[in-house]
């Protein structure tokens, strides 16, 4: 486990602060299909997917804390959920390193499910004073759908900001070389 470069950490921190500000100042004010897009779990999952489980978990904790502090919510709830999302995103990369085009969509959807269901579970455990509508399920499903739609541009943004600061990964270097030099490219056989 090599320590992450200062440039990478700085970029993640800047991106996180900027995205949380945009989230609570703009994105939250524009409902889509009656629900709000939540960019923060997407950001955390994608940082994990690009940078690994350690940075994913730390970013998740920090972004969660920032969100809870800025929105004056119960401290620790968002940190707990986002830590798990960031760690899981990182483990996915470390174990499978998925390269399919649909990966951001699936990771975004999974991160949204964990975030929305996790929040609901914790709130139920803490006790809810008000009656709970069955429409909560519809809100969760719609939330996952709109977040999944937002996952594609979000992935492009996170990758664009972080990719040049990422340490060189031997697996990706091998894969890149294979496809660019023609050695193992399926096109070169024909």
């Amino acid at each position, binding site marked *: 486990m090599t320590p992450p470069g200062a440039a990478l950490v700085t970029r993640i921190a800047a991106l996180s602060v900027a995205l949380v*500000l*945009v989230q*609570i100042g*703009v994105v*939250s004010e524009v*409902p889509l299909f009656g629900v709000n897009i939540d960019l923060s779990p997407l950001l955390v999952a994608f940082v994990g997917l690009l940078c690994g*489980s350690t940075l994913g978990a730390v970013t998740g904790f920090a972004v969660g804390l920032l969100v809870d502090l800025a929105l004056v919510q*119960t401290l620790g709830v968002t940190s707990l959920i986002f830590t798990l999302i960031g760690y899981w995103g990182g483990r996915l990369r470390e174990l499978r390193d998925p390269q399919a085009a649909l990966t951001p969509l699936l990771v975004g959807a999974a991160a949204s499910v964990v975030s*929305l269901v996790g929040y609901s579970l914790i709130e139920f455990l803490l006790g809810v*004073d008000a009656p709970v509508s069955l429409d909560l399920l519809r809100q969760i499903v719609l939330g996952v759908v709109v977040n999944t739609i937002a996952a594609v541009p979000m992935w492009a943004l996170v990758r664009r900001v972080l990719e040049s600061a990422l340490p060189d990964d031997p697996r990706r270097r091998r894969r890149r070389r294979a496809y660019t030099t023609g050695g193992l490219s399926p096109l070169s056989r024909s």
Partner: protein
Amino acid sequence: MHDKTVRRRRALLVLLVVLSLLLLTAYFGEAPSGRLHSVQRGFLTVVSPIQDGANKALKPVRDLFGGISDTFHAKSQRNELRKQVAKLRRELVADQGEKRSYRELLGVFHLDNQLSIANYHPVTATVFAKSPNIWYSTVTIDKGEAAGVHINDPVINGEGLVGKVTQVASDGAVISLITDSTVGVSARLGTTSATGIVQPKVGDPNDLLLQYLPANTQVGKGEYVVTSGTVASPDNSLYPPGLLIGQVTSVNEESAYKSVNVHPIANLHNLDVVQVLTAASGSLPANLGRIAASLPAGQNPNGGATGEALASTGAHP
């Protein structure tokens, strides 16, 4: 080497999860004046100007997306509003005669000392942040203690009741909207004196529930629900009487009590400017609020046992 890396990675995960659980437990267990709440208020004070600036800079983007979203609903809203205008015009004509008689009677019996919104020293504030979470219906405004805003102050906009102040810093405050799971408002139907509690339905931001109405209450669809001007417990916010909350959409028949579904009148998805009703210290609303806050829960100062402490205006804890 690999084992060491794995151990370190797992230790970090456990550390962060334990830290989150400790924060959660400590925050949940402490009083609103506790350390973690103070840290949160301090953070709000620091970031309020930054968020406010960012909000102003990003307003054109928000307006653009908001405009696109509004366009989709414009036609159906226009038709609905036309129907409402025709109905309200008829009601206005009928009410004008009754209003004149009412004023005369108030004068005759020396009862014309009702409080108006102006008595509450309304402070106009701009909304600059909103929670995206289903479980937290909160917004943050750019006015705080420095402008006289206190915890539990009622918040309105041009359409009706919006919520109440739940956290306050020197230059910012957090408002829990009436759709937030922690907010309950004493309310009555526009045409009857029967009171109940308006609570949100978690998961359905466009629906509220007016509960605990007497079973024999006559309720019609489309009827208005307004604040009753009473509180159910000394910790509750005292909303001035007569503030519009919403309109009845359906009635639920239950055995002991009746409950009705209420659609909020104020557009809570698109809040830009709100007014905080800050009763200044020593004013009549503040004094009445203090009296109400000192009453034990469930006691009526008039001697009745209605289950609600009677008070008429904005309170401070």
